[in-house]
């Protein structure tokens, strides 16, 4: 088992180190970092905007580039939150608490330097987990029947929608809406055109790019236009030499990194608890075990490093169910899966066997990408800091152009630009009504496979709907799902304080 995993990893390195793949990985990290550092651009928006760039590339290169974009954007967001107190992505909200005070004290460079190191350590552990856990999971999953897969998807969908921010019922509604949007188009089995309302352009279904860019692009720009306050650049002068931590700081930060790694990897094992929850727990842990908890919020290096590390460790962990089971945990992973599907690759447990180059190449590229991230960020920090100064009034018109050309280039079809505009207006309405649109993407990506598994499960069981509870594996998944909903209801009824966490749509940036 371990031997075959290591052999796979070895093969993966030879794939990832091929010059053109290495180049795509490098481009991804660079461009992702470049866009992610811009104030207001979170990883999901960055990935959606850059997704069309990967269409012309072969599947392996495309997925390596997209993964590179993800951690580039992730780290770019950290720069933005530490230096400007501007979290563009929910996991970074806690990074700001101590990151910005450190910046005010002139130690922003140190915080950034240690975050790079922490994210590398966290990611490395997450990758190690993936190397050894993913093949085990795949072996298990290959024994699943359609009923089991169906229940597993249901669990994944429920976890992804109820544990995200905002009201759980709205999250579930968004998932159902996503499933419905995934149905639009020609049904593969019967050839019936469903929910197209006579529009022939919709026969092939709604485009993932149009959906993602409508919801995370146009809707987000409508939400932010003229609402973005000018950023405070007074403290953000950071040069290369500022990034080196002192020995004392390193001694304080290293244990925090390991604790953050642990929290992150534990969180990624629980379905639905993604990087956001991991970063909150990591921060809370640091505060609890610290001898000076009252100093948190005034610039404690532990309070920056631990959440950043746990975020990266948990994102890497999220790749495990995504790549080995084909079930994404959040919008970021849904985009990765969607990109694979656009390349004509069916995600699921068979992926490792059918496309070992993609799976192991991706794993190996994680390491290479994270090393590139460190190598890039140390010398380029001065440039990133300058990019922070780009005002929003220049940013969103340029980004809108990228949205348009990206959607157009996906299929050379102007109709899809119109589709994106309509989805954007609709998405903004959803934002204003207090919905968080991320679960739409989950439902959209899983929809067709969910329907297929559901149909086949009932075909095999001759229409016996109880098959889902009669099969033990499926029953376990359903029990976990029931437990999940039960706890949610219990927590809601018990304390209304949770409402504080459900921030208003203004903070709904994904």
């Amino acid at each position, binding site marked *: 088992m371990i031997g075959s995993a290591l052999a796979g990893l070895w093969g993966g390195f030879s794939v990832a180190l091929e010059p053109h793949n290495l180049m795509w990985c490098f481009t991804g990290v660079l461009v992702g970092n470049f866009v992610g550092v811009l104030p207001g651009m979170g990883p999901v928006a960055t990935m959606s905007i850059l997704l069309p760039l990967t269409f*012309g590339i072969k599947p392996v290169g495309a997925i390596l580039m997209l993964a590179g974009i993800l951690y580039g954007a992730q780290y770019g967001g950290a720069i933005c939150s530490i230096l400007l107190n501007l979290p563009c992505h929910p996991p970074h909200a806690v990074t700001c608490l101590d990151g910005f005070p450190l910046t005010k004290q002139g130690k922003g460079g140190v915080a950034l330097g240690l975050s790079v190191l922490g994210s590398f350590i966290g990611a490395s552990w997450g990758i190690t987990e993936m190397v050894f856990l993913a093949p085990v999971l795949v072996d298990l999953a290959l024994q699943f029947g359609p009923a089991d897969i169906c229940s597993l998807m249901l669990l994944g969908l429920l976890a992804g929608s109820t544990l995200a921010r905002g009201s759980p019922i709205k999250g579930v509604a968004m998932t159902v809406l996503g499933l419905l949007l995934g149905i639009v188009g020609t049904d593969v089995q019967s050839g019936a055109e469903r929910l197209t309302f006579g529009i022939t352009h919709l026969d092939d279904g709604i485009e993932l790019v149009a959906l993602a860019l409508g919801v995370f692009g146009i809707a987000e720009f409508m939400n932010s236009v*003229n609402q973005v306050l000018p950023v405070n650049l007074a403290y953000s002068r950071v040069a290369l030499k500022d990034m080196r931590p002192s020995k004392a700081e390193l001694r304080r930060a290293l244990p925090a990194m390991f604790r953050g790694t642990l929290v992150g990897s534990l969180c990624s094992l629980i379905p639905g608890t993604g990087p956001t929850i991991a970063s909150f727990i990591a921060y809370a842990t640091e505060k609890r075990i610290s001898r000076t908890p009252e100093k948190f919020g005034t610039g404690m290096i532990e309070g920056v490093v631990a959440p950043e590390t746990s975020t990266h460790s948990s994102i890497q962990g999220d790749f495990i169910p995504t790549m080995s089971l084909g079930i994404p945990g959040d919008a970021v992973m849904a985009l990765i899966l969607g990109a694979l599907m656009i390349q004509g690759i069916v995600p699921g447990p068979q992926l490792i066997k059918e496309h070992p180059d993609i799976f192991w190449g991706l794993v190996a590229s994680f390491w290479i990408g994270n090393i590139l991230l460190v190598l890039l960020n140390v010398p380029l920090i001065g440039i990133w800091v300058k990019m922070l100064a780009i005002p929003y009034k220049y940013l969103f*018109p340029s980004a809108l152009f990228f949205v348009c050309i990206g959607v157009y280039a996906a299929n050379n079809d102007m109709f899809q630009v119109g589709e994106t505009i309509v989805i954007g*207006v609709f998405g903004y309405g959803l934002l204003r009504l207090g919905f968080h649109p991320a679960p739409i993407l989950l439902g959209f990506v899983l929809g067709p496979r969910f329907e297929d598994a559901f149909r086949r499960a009932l*075909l095999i069981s001759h229409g016996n709907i109880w098959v889902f509870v009669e099969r033990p594996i499926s029953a376990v998944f359903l029990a976990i799902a029931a437990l999940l909903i039960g706890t949610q209801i219990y927590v809601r009824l018990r304390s209304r304080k949770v409402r504080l966490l459900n921030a208003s749509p203004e903070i709904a940036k994904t």
Partner: protein
Amino acid sequence: MSQEPKHAAATLRNWTRKRDFYAGALMILLGSVAAIAGPSYRLGTLVQMGPGFMPTALGIILIVLGIVMAGSAIAVAEGEDEDILPQLPQWRGWACVLAGPIAFMVLGTVSGLIPATFGCVFVSALGDREATLKSTVVLALTVTGFGVAVFFYLLQVPMPLLTWRGL
């Protein structure tokens, strides 16, 4: 006794101001669309499910969720959760954000990449409160130059730079 209907009317008025009332109503509407359209694609049986089964089922689930969502808004106190429009509605900003991509669509179909890019950036940049004609033109020209270099020459997006196809 006569206060009863008045009270009910006040509750109703309060209810119809809530964000979740409209959130629920929207879900009920969307669910109904799917649930009504679904059966026309043939429902089938549980063993041999037709293409209409899933949309109908999902539509019904969405309607139920919408009812619960709208219903829960009754209990919300007066004045809370009512800000469906932001405090300062950005009509100009919204219009420009949407007009930019529309300009891209129209100009891209009629006359090519250069006017489409310029138009898209120019129109949407006007949505910012501080936008001046000069800054907008400079921004639009910069992005056009960059866009043509990257998307036409580097990535070879098949779209003519400048033509006239007529309206």
